[in-house]
């Protein structure tokens, strides 16, 4: 239902009269875009953009530019990055602007920096002081902005300067800060596992009361499990218990999507459990029940997200120590995907069936014909599968 409405509305524009008076538009940007909408030739468009860039460069370098003017220029620069012209002259201005104390301006500074810089940028070190200051600030929004930027731009050289401060954020009172700190620490681990201690850091937040924070924790554990599931097996019961809470709709109802409690978290948990139960009968026995219950919770799927949970269950069942009853249920459910009219479901169905078949080829025989039909389908992605 929401998809229909958006479909109609999103294509609506391109009349110049943009009438949303409650949203203030940067004048320079509006002026530029209105010009561009009238232009018919590539050369003219190129010239207009280059002229605008020259203008921006001069204005930004002027010693008398005010902070609200600079803010507007940076918004235009952010737009310019989507047109792929060289805007490196703005890098230093963006970095400086993150030092603004007004939150509205600081936010634009950080956004510009995210668009302009990358982790190998030569001016990255100039950001460190500001990042440290904002990470230590008592203003949680500044903490969040800094954490997001750190996750995006951190490199080996700059990481040590912020690791300890970020770790402290794990115990911040605001869940918005805690969950970002976890993701930032995961990025640090991905950069350099030896100089970080992710598993230890996560122990402290594994029992967090906020489910969004738990999602970040599970994201991190999933990454660790892919590297090496063995040290995490002792936590299996905790992961199972979280999934049980989701199946019992424990989280607040506004965390539901199409009636399912935190489906993306369920997907991550199922994948995590798959790594833990792989080739391990003891561990698998602990999780068979919750996997089966996850499957029965989406008995009559009517929307995509429910199908995605069924698919995850199937993959998990096929990955862990084989349990015939569970595999039979899984095979039966995934085969329904193949007869769908929705090509996405057929694609996912084939993926799921492939996994089950690798455990036991007998499951495939019933569905041979449907799979063969997919080979003739005009959809290239489906054919390849």
């Amino acid at each position: 239902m929401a998809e229909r409405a958006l479909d109609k509305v999103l294509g609506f524009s391109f009349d110049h009269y943009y009438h949303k008076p409650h949203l203030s538009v940067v004048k320079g940007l509006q002026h530029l875009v209105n010009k561009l909408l009238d232009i018919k030739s590539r050369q003219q468009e190129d010239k207009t953009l280059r002229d605008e860039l020259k203008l921006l460069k001069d204005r930004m370098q002027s010693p008398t530019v005010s902070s609200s003017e600079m803010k507007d220029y940076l918004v235009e620069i952010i737009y310019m990055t989507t047109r792929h012209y060289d805007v490196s002259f703005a890098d230093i201005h963006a970095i400086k602007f993150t030092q603004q104390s007004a939150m509205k301006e600081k936010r634009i500074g950080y956004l510009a920096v995210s668009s302009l810089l990358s982790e190998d940028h030569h001016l990255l070190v100039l950001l460190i002081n500001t990042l440290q200051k904002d990470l230590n600030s008592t203003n949680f929004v500044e903490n969040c902005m800094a954490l997001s930027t750190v996750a995006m731009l951190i490199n080996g050289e700059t990481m040590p300067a912020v690791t300890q401060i970020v770790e402290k954020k794990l115990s911040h009172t605001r869940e918005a800060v805690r969950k970002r700190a976890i993701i930032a620490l995961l990025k640090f681990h991905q950069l350099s596992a030896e100089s970080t201690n992710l598993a230890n850091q996560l122990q402290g937040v594994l029992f967090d009361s906020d489910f969004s924070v738990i999602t970040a924790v599970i994201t991190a554990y999933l990454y660790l499990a892919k590297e090496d599931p063995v040290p995490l097996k002792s936590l299996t019961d905790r992961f199972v218990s979280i999934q049980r809470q989701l199946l019992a709709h424990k989280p607040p109802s506004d965390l539901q999507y199409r009636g399912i409690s935190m489906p993306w978290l369920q997907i991550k948990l199922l994948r995590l459990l798959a790594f833990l139960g792989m080739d391990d009968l003891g561990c698998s026995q602990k999780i068979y029940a919750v996997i089966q219950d996850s499957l029965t919770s989406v008995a009559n799927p009517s929307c995509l997200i429910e199908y995605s949970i069924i698919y995850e269950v199937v993959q998990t069942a096929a990955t862990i120590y084989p349990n015939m009853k569970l595999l039979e249920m899984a095979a039966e459910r995934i085969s329904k995907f193949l007869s769908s009219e929705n090509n996405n479901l057929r694609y996912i169905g084939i993926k799921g069936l492939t996994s089950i078949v690798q455990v036991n080829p007998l499951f495939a025989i019933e569905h041979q014909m449907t799979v063969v039909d997919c080979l003739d389908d005009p959809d290239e992605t489906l054919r390849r599968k």
Partner: protein
Amino acid sequence: MASRGEEIQQQILRETYHLVSKRDDNVCNFLEGGSLIGGGSGYKLIYRHYATLYFVFCVDSSESELGILDLIQVFVETLDKHFENVCELDLIFHIDKVQHILAEIVMGGMVLETNMTEVLTHLDAQAKLEKSEAGITAAPARAISAVKSMGPNVSIPHMPHFNFKGH
């Protein structure tokens, strides 16, 4: 997504557009991308088509394809709620806000939040803080400009000392 040079980024974009815009509406929304993106590196393009716009996410194998399809829907619904009937021009004129919203959902290439209500709540909290900050710092400035606008020769009247004891 790993960071790439400008030129390669442009090529990737062109290739993506080329691949995605050719697709019919009833085929898979997943593409095991072209030479620069997929083909061995394990990346996939997952996209949704809304009127004249394509929203394309490039993901690695650790993401659920169907899950990402719904995540795109959450992103677009959030944009719609925030902009009140979002349209293409919103995405251009308010590119900073769009990136800000995306930054609430994806952080450093990892999915941070999947719930629209959580995202909108956090955006509101930030907006309120920004407004109150502007209110506090703007008040003295407003007062001064109000006095100045009264004219150059206005003298501020002498205010009587308020004596509590008298009342």
